[in-house]
């Protein structure tokens, strides 16, 4: 793997999928993968298949719902959308993440001897 790409941190994919659905509205799996790819600007290396396991997990928690719809090129596809419960959860997760990222950032930016 190249130096410029980093692997998706475990547990963060769910957060990204949830946020994507929150801001973009209903999407199918392919669309979610494209959107994350686009936002990551090729920094993240994503096994796109894992998006589907993430979708399954989120669905079991009741944070997203799915419905059948028709895609842009007239194919039957499953569209996922965030639920009310999911929106609440997204808030919680986001706070968690910001707190965590803040801590990591502070630890990494401290001045040291070495």
């Amino acid at each position, binding site marked *: 793997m190249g130096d410029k790409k980093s692997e998706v941190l475990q547990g963060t994919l769910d957060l990204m999928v949830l946020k994507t659905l929150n801001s973009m509205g209903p999407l199918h*799996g392919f669309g979610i993968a494209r959107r994350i790819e686009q936002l990551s600007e090729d920094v993240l290396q994503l096994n*796109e*298949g894992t998006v589907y*396991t993430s979708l*399954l997990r989120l*669905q*079991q928690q009741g944070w997203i719902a799915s419905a059948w719809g028709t895609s842009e090129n007239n*194919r039957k*596809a499953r569209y996922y959308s965030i639920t009310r419960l999911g929106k609440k959860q997204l808030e919680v997760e986001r706070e968690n993440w910001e707190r965590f990222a803040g801590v990591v950032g502070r630890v990494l930016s401290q001045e040291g001897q070495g």
Partner: protein
Amino acid sequence: MRAMRGLRVFSARMQALFAQRRADRVFDDELQQHLQLLTERFVSQGMSRKDAADAARRQFGNAALLQQRQREARTFLSLTSLWRDLWFGARMLRKHPGSTVGVIVALALGIGMNACVFTFVNALLLRPPTGYKAPNEMREVWEHPRNASGIGSFMPLTYPDYAFFRDHARSFSGILAYDGDPEEIIWNRSGHGQVLHGQLVSGNAFSVAGVGVAMGRAFTPADDQPTHPQPLVILRHSFWKQRLGSDPDIIGKSLMLNGMKYDVIGVAQPGFTGFEVAMAPDFWTPLSMVEQLVHDPGRLTSRNSNWLLTDGRLVAGQTTKSAQAEMSVLARELELAHADTNKDMGETLFTFAPVPGPFRGYVTAFTGMLMVVFGLVLVIACTNAASLLMVKSTGRAREMAIRSALGAGRGRLIRQMTVESLLLSLVAGCTAVLLASLTSQLLLNLIPSSLPISIELPLDWRVLVFTFLVALVTGIVFGVTPALRGTRIDPVQVIKAETHSGGYQKSRLRTAIMIGEVAVCALLLFSATLCVRSLLNAGSIDPGFDTQNIAVATLDAGSLGYSDVKVEAFYRELATHIRALPGVFSSSYVNHLPLDTSREQTSVTDESLAGTKPNGVPVDVFRVEPGYFKTMGVPLLGGRDFAQGELDRKVNVIVVNGALALRLWPGQNPIGKLITVGDAKVRSQVIGVVKTGKYRSLGEEPIPALFRMEMPPRRVLVVHTFADPGSLLDAVQREVQIVDPNMAATEVQTIGKFMSLPMFAARTTGLLLGASGLLALVLTWIGLFGVISFSVSERTCEIGVRMAMGAGRGDVMKLIMRQGLFVTGIGLVIGIGAALAAARLLSSLLYGIRPDDPATVVVVVAGMTVVTMLACYIPARRAMRVNPVIALRYE
């Protein structure tokens, strides 16, 4: 919040469980579509179609793994992967047929013997008696003196007591009673006598038990009035079907039973065998007919004759406790009214089961002991299976390493191995069910035919559940340890170094398991050897009569209502016929055989000794005819046998046994002495002394006994034959019918067959424990063989080095043997220590052998040593042939 979330996931998985196939397809479609879209995107970016497809797959990741993860995450336990585990497990087991068959056989034997014992426990203690409606409402009522304890103090009820409880107890909607011993009745069918079993029952028996009739009607209390007995019978359904050809007009017809006409009023419902489980009488007749049926006047009014077994049906809302309280109050009332017979007599209630309440303790103790013994056999089988599996799992270390390198988690590997061991144990469980049904039938055949017992041993759900639970637990017990050990591996180490994993830790565990197995085996073997030797001892106990060339048959001329003269004439005529048969040496009659269940006792006094010596000696009495001692092979120590003339003239002469002579007249000649027997007015003269035999049980101390004439109408014919008495049995039965077509002999058998009754307990115990010991020995041998073989193959390299350094073949043999004997030695010390502690429990079953018999210790030690050396021999031979060069190069 967290709980709610768990609930949501749970319900989602529950739904998924039922919509599996469709969901799988949808998911697969979704993935395929995604791949397709990706490919198209790459194509539009200018890639060739093939490169685009590859790139898409690369970017998408491992689709197969994803699909599996999806299945596992979506629902609980993926059936598909379980199925794959099973399939793979079956293949692995087929690949090692030797150890697979070994484990299955060992486990099937272990589980099977337990299931067999449980079949008996189920039939005797757990299963409610068949035929009764709502048997859980029934309670048995027993009398027993308040201050007494022990099983012998529980008594059936007398008729007056039964009638009192039946009429006064409010806790019961009804109490039924029946005669505990079905009577043997002679059925005179168109001039031909046949023996039937009839049971006396109370008039309310059918209604209280809730048993219906197939035709006709059941008894009512009006049919059972002591003041007005009526000869009525209800027939057992299968008797009516088989012996009366399902006669549709049987109601209103009559049967000639013991010389009296009985009207058939009903046929019981099909499948109802009787009020007691083990007994299946051919017909039932009211209790009030007891005097006519068995010629025992006064049975209904006697307050001393305890003969009725009783079951009451509790009124709704009553408990055993409240009913018990009421019965105790009623018992006090009886005590006040009849101080002479009912003093301190209490009533005890038991829940209702096939084995009568007071005897359940015995049955429980006996079957419990067997369960423990065969449980130990199962432990051996388990350790065997575990050590075989562990050996295999070590051999499979490479496979496990590769699988875990390919991404299988440790849980996945443990599951695979557990599935394999459960598969083994379930196959063993199925085999065990077969085994149990076979062996329990074999065991039933051990019950002597003279005991009127017929036990049904159904393989019902309780037995099946028990067996499969045992199999399941067994599978987990023997499977989990090897699975945990076998999967704790570092794949890199194993694959890279290709070393034999295992090492010190693992071999120490194997050794510990083997030591445990040897210890348990030594314990079982010790008990088994004791019992088998005791059985041999019991076989060699001299009962005081010939046990080879005698045929016996029971006759009851009184049951036909003949006069005394006619009875005597019948027996004279029969004796003449029997003596005329070819191959007959002599014949005689006795009222009952020694060691049978009947007994007559009295006391004797020698007035001339009054005041000086112990007088009023209790003695067992046998009534015999001239020729009895010669026929039975009882040696005369002095004096002479009875003479025919003395029988005809009714002279008061008796023969005593050595024990009685020694008791009354030590050091004197007893011939000619005069003694009073019981409270007879006339004294009897001793004309002979015979050798003391065994009269009640084979283990007894010498019992004083006397022999006199004056026979009752019921007699046992004894015939001494020159050759095998078995060939004469048919002739004896035929002669009886020739002399009087209305008579039928019962229990026509050889003396050897008869002896199975007194030998029953010792034989059964000896056989079962012997089987368990042998089983344990064979299993241990297999186990030792497997473990030693494996350790030899593991030490091939070491042995090669030793041989290269100059060790001889003898040294290698010694090395292997030492390892085996070390394990056996420690196991033996532990096992025999435990056995000596446990053997005291067996002492009551042992004949002429001490529970700490040193010879038995020697036998067990020697036996185990030989078995160990045998188990070591083949692997040691293999080790000796190791070629050092090849062994070293292989590593």
